[in-house]
């Protein structure tokens, strides 16, 4: 007897375990019989087949499929409501090899995101949009969508959608097909196994067009929402076949005209523009010294301590020394008071995400910052703390701690708000990862009030004297 082999099983493009809620989920969060699950499995199996998993970026929308990033073992971005086509455009212009999938519901795409999809289609972006039309807002409990058929009762149309009051349902394929640029537009359905197989073909064609740089591809998928339609999963599928596929949303290919995209026109990184922009710049655009360890820096304190500008000071200095740099501020609504922190990454390599969860340098300007971030510092990391305000020593024994009375040093020089400059000077002098001369030079770039430049430079010198006196450098 020949061996029995696996013919169909979970896609390699989906995680084996989903790290949602508990760490070992195997099921999705979708309701029983929801079309999102089927559509996403089809997409995953095509990603496998085209061998594009390692360069796919999956854009989740707002809506029931917001959590898609828990399922797709690809690049993932969760976009603001309706904005996936704009995000896709940004990725397209920077990563020419990425395969970009915008996955959007009908509230997301045809409601709040109508502008983005129309313009992305009109530009003929080489991206793929999967439009899951379940004729309702699923996640929020069943309100009318732009695609809800006339007469259908929803939470917001308790007597049924009315043409005179609510307008007709919008056919997105028809609308986009009025534009010249799109390469491929097709409407499919998940109503029957046969239609599911056809949908897979359309998904494959759409992604294949993108791989071959043939332009904008758009697949609308009529998809059941048994929960908000208040139907069984099987009745919901029958309702699609009987009510949606007919006159309202006919299943067909609306456009199949592959475009020739000029690869160069997609890139924003044009050497001539880079030269133009950097010609007179102090910034190094390249660095050819020995490799430097990346720094993941968290600077935290209360608002008004200059935490964010401390981050800018590090960022500007690192730029000047040829690092790739990201700076990400985080603060509450208060202008003064409250707490604030800045995440700064300095790396020889390109930076994928500006988020710093586990810093290898923590600059703690006050007590709460040490409480909040001490445990997140990596093994052998560095904590620089403002000992004028931080009352306790770090509990961690696997990190190096430097206590600098920053507020006192700044106050003594008559500019208490410059405690941040003391801390950054100390960081540079102690670790040597930035030259103090570069920091001094950057102070002028960062300071809002130029009046205080000299004062700040004096404070840098005072800090260096303190460090020498304490034999910290």
């Amino acid at each position, binding site marked *: 007897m020949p061996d029995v082999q696996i013919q169909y099983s*979970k*896609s390699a493009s989906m995680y084996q375990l989903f790290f949602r809620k508990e760490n070992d989920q195997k099921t999705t969060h979708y309701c029983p019989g929801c079309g999102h699950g089927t559509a996403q499995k089809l997409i995953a199996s095509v990603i496998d087949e085209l061998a594009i998993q390692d360069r796919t970026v999956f854009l989740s929308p707002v809506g029931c499929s917001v959590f898609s990033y828990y399922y797709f073992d690809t690049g993932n971005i969760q976009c603001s409501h309706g904005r996936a086509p704009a995000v896709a455009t940004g990725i397209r212009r920077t990563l020419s090899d990425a395969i970009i999938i915008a996955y959007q519901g009908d509230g997301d795409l045809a409601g709040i995101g109508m502008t983005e999809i129309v313009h992305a289609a009109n530009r003929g972006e080489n991206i793929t949009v999967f439009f899951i039309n379940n004729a309702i807002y699923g996640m929020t409990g069943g309100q009318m969508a732009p695609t809800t058929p006339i007469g259908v009762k929803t939470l917001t149309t308790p007597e049924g959608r009315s043409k005179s009051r609510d307008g007709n349902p919008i056919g997105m394929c028809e609308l986009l097909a009025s534009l010249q640029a799109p390469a491929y537009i097709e409407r499919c359905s998940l109503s029957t196994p046969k239609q599911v197989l056809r949908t897979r073909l359309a998904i494959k064609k759409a992604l294949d067009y993108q791989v071959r740089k043939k332009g904008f591809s758009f697949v609308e998928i009529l998809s059941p929402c048994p929960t908000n339609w208040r139907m069984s999963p099987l009745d919901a*599928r029958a309702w699609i076949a009987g009510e949606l596929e007919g006159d309202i949303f006919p299943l067909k290919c609306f456009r199949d005209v592959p475009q020739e995209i000029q690869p160069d026109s997609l890139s924003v990184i044009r050497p001539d523009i880079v030269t133009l922009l950097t010609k007179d710049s102090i910034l190094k655009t390249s660095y050819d010294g020995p490799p430097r360890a990346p720094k993941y820096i968290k600077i935290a304190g209360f608002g008004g301590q200059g935490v964010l500008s401390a981050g800018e000071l590090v960022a500007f200095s690192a730029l000047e020394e040829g690092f790739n740099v990201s700076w990400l501020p985080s603060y509450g609504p208060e202008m003064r008071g409250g707490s604030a922190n800045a995440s700064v990454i300095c790396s020889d390599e390109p930076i994928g995400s500006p988020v710093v969860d586990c810093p290898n340098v923590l600059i703690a300007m006050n007590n709460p910052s040490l409480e909040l971030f001490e445990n997140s510092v990596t093994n052998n990391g560095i904590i620089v703390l403002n000992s004028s305000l931080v009352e306790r020593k770090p509990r961690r024994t696997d990190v190096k701690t430097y206590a600098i009375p920053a507020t006192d040093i700044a106050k003594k020089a008559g500019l208490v708000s410059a405690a941040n400059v003391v801390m950054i000077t100390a960081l540079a002098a102690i670790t040597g990862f930035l030259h103090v001369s570069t920091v001094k030079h950057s102070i002028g770039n960062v300071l809002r009030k130029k009046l205080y430049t000299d004062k700040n430079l004096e404070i840098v010198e005072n800090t260096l004297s303190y460090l020498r006196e304490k034999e910290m450098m």
Partner: protein
Amino acid sequence: MNHVEIHRDECKGCAVCVAACPHGCLVIGDTLNLMGYQYVEFVGNDRCTACGLCFTVCPEPGALVVYGMKKV
């Protein structure tokens, strides 16, 4: 022999696969799984063609695995 392996605790009992199978190989059983759903059972020992339709229509990524004799 062609057959479908059911991961009972990943099945939400929606019966979409049951309706999709051209040979009546799947039924919803009486027992509840860990999520509280009556999950699907495979009863198609001689009839299953390993066509994969049940897998393809099922909304859950890993509830079903289809085994067959044909070479992959």
